[in-house]
């Protein structure tokens, strides 16, 4: 009898461990880093690590916005397009219109927010599936970028602007600082505020959320706007880092962002995910790319490996869930 009574407690404890899927991913990530450090000692140099983090910092920022969207059970395919659109618009304001930096950047980011708002309108007001609405907006924003630039890169930029992507405070590159700020704010927002909690409710069961008095539409608007916002922030850093704004920038970023979120333990059916997990997911992809370079694997093989990692991460998770159910 005693034994039977203990079982639920043990099971619940097990669930808590499983629930912390992020900690699992973190362990895998650390093991991988250690292993890599042994094979390629160059990996564990401050210089290399700073480089790697700077490289995945922008994807991480985009993926933070994507995390909100995916937790509601949605998806945003337009984030790459938003990055390009905001990047080119900001560049154009700076270079062609000679706007001051402190005006051009907010306007650019606001444009990102605006596209997010349009996504929200299409999804909430018209009722389009998120996949379709954001697929459309991806094409629209990419098309606008081409129309605006006619394919030519926009440059040169004032040095103050370039510092956002290339400078450092003390020895930490500014993109990394911005990423850390975004990640911390987003984490607090998602895990400590009521709106953050509503995002989980909406993703877990929109019908029950509605019947519990939660304004589901408002939450959906918020998450798509946040995805636009974070894409806008990433866009500014990217342009400053590349010293030029091109129509082809951030190609395929939507997929990298989705991959980071999913590797980080979120479920595409909604209700699960965390900012911390997303950060690890993005870091994982960044480190793997770096590993392939350090190990002199051909660039052409990189995508194959990244693809396999995504599949392995999700498959692993699925298998674990199935075992739990049985």
């Amino acid at each position, binding site marked *: 009898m005693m*034994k*039977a009574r*203990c*079982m*639920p*407690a*043990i*099971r*619940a404890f097990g*669930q*808590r461990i499983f*629930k912390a899927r992020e900690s699992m991913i973190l362990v895998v990530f650390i093991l991988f880093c250690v292993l890599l450090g042994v094979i390629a000692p160059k990996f564990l140099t401050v210089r290399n690590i700073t480089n790697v983090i700077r490289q995945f910092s922008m994807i991480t920022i985009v993926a933070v916005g994507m995390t909100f969207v995916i937790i509601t059970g949605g998806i945003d395919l337009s984030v790459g397009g938003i990055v390009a659109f905001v990047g080119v618009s900001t560049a154009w304001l700076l270079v062609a219109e000679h706007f001051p930096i402190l005006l051009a950047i907010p306007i650019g980011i606001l444009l990102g927010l605006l596209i997010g708002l349009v996504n929200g309108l299409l999804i*909430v007001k018209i*009722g389009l599936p998120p996949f379709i609405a954001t697929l459309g907006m991806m094409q629209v924003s990419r098309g606008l970028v081409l129309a605006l630039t006619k394919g030519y890169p926009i440059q040169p930029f004032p040095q103050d602007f370039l510092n956002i992507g290339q400078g450092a405070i003390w020895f930490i590159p500014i993109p990394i600082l911005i990423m850390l700020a975004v990640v911390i704010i987003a984490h607090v927002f998602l895990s*400590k*505020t*009521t*709106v*953050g*909690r*509503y995002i*989980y*409710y909406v993703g*877990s*069961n*929109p*019908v*029950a*959320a*509605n*019947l*519990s*008095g*939660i*304004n*589901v*539409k408002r939450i*959906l608007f918020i998450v798509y706007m946040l995805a636009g916002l974070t894409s806008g922030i990433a866009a500014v850093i990217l342009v400053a880092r590349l010293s030029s704004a091109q129509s082809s920038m951030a190609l395929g970023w939507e997929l990298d962002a989705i991959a980071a979120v999913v590797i980080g333990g979120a479920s595409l059916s909604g*209700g*699960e995910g965390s900012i911390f997990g997303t950060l690890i997911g993005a870091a994982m992809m960044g480190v793997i790319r770096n590993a392939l370079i350090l190990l002199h694997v051909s660039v052409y093989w990189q995508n194959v490996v990244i693809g396999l990692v995504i599949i392995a991460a999700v498959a692993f998770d699925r298998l674990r869930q199935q075992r739990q159910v049985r």
Partner: protein
Amino acid sequence: MDDTILRMKSISKSFPGVRALDDVSFEVRRGEVHAILGENGAGKSTLVKILSGAYRRDSGEIELDGHPVEIHNPSHAQSLGIAMIYQEFNLAPHLSVEANIFIGREPRRGPFAIIDQRAIHRQSQKLIKQLGVELDVTQRINTLNVCQQQITEIAKALSMKSHVVIMDEPTSALSESEILTLFSVIRRLKQEGLGIIYISHNLGEVFEIADRITVLRDGKKIDTQNAREVTPEEEVQKMVGRDIADMYAKREVPVGEVVLRVNGLSSGNMLRQISFELRSGEVVGIAGLLGSGRTELIRAIFGADRKERGTVEVVGYKHKINRIGDAIRGGIGLVPEDRKEQGLFLGMPLGPNISAASIRDVSYHGILDRKKERALAAKYVEELDIKIAGLEQLVLNLSGGNQQKTVLAKWLARSPQILLLDDPTRGIDVGAKQAIYRLIGELAATGVGIIFVSSELPEILGISDRILVMGSGQIKGEFSRAEATQEKIMSLATTSTMIACEQEPGSIAQEDNE
């Protein structure tokens, strides 16, 4: 010697930490309906899942037609002639009835083995006719109501030349008249010589349809008896293992002032000119068949659906109730029809499920206070005796009764003035039902006005102060507690010429936020 088709001998099955079945023997004869009774967790589902190939037994034997068999998996069970009709149907919603009946086993013809549509059509019609019902086999599943879908499932089982049909809570989503149709179908199956295993919580149904009844409790078989030789009361005692003095235990509570006024509520054909009042401390039962408009009425009062005309007023609240937000702020709570689909956040822990409607109370300027949230959840876990391993446990893993208590707790956390309960005891075990009746009584005693919708007349009669009977979207009549009887209610509820298993296409879940 005998006409026993299926014999299960000394079956045992353990899951980690639980002995789900302990030396259970069970048999089914040709042409009989053998009911299995038991509370949730008694082992009913485990037993039939071993039969259907979903679980493997640990020990014991299974004989089919006198030959020992091993059931490897669900499709093997099917090929042996054991068909399972699940609570959730396994139908392809976008295909027709006939396509579903023969799915994966389509008759072929010609050298290229083309699917023989004509044969499918002919044979499906024959099967449906065999069941004694009217159903257009070319209709798509998603245009059918639950009853018609179930008939499709049964026809499918029949088409597989099944000898044993297992029905797990087949009536949980059916209206009274649809249940009658199902029963006539079951009687046909008996005539055809099939053995039927019937699992239900509803004693009334079991006694109406079953030839023999086996009671399970805590994984052990209590006994098997002919249905004619036992009374429902005896069986309940065996199931629960203790005396139930008074199932409903109605508390007499002084009825107070009017708290809710519903005035001329109308919405298309679903609701027509509904007016009534609810007083504090009063339990108003709403009786009516599925599709009578009872769920629509509840949703309209809660502001979940748009109404065409009429008003809903909470006395003492300044606004008319037009949206869910108004209702909640006005002190109304809703326990919806389908707890899993509409009431719970299944993948989330218990705590957030309980606090879902009171997030403002457990936060400060938009920042969550987790300590407060846990305290709130813990309070209701204790008050409602929700059985859990810890507040972190996912609601997914709770039993039906504990899940329903969780939904109730979500609203109790807001100290509502008015509670709308839409069939709150559906599919939960006797013990949990009793707990919910007791809770309703306690809430009424503290002055909460309660509207209680149910498919089970005995419980409506048992706990209501006043009973409204609905049909065709109207209030057909009203009885006081003293004058109401099952017969009076049924005759009123069915006057709307409800022909069994007809119209009212299965719920079209059009939530406005999707």
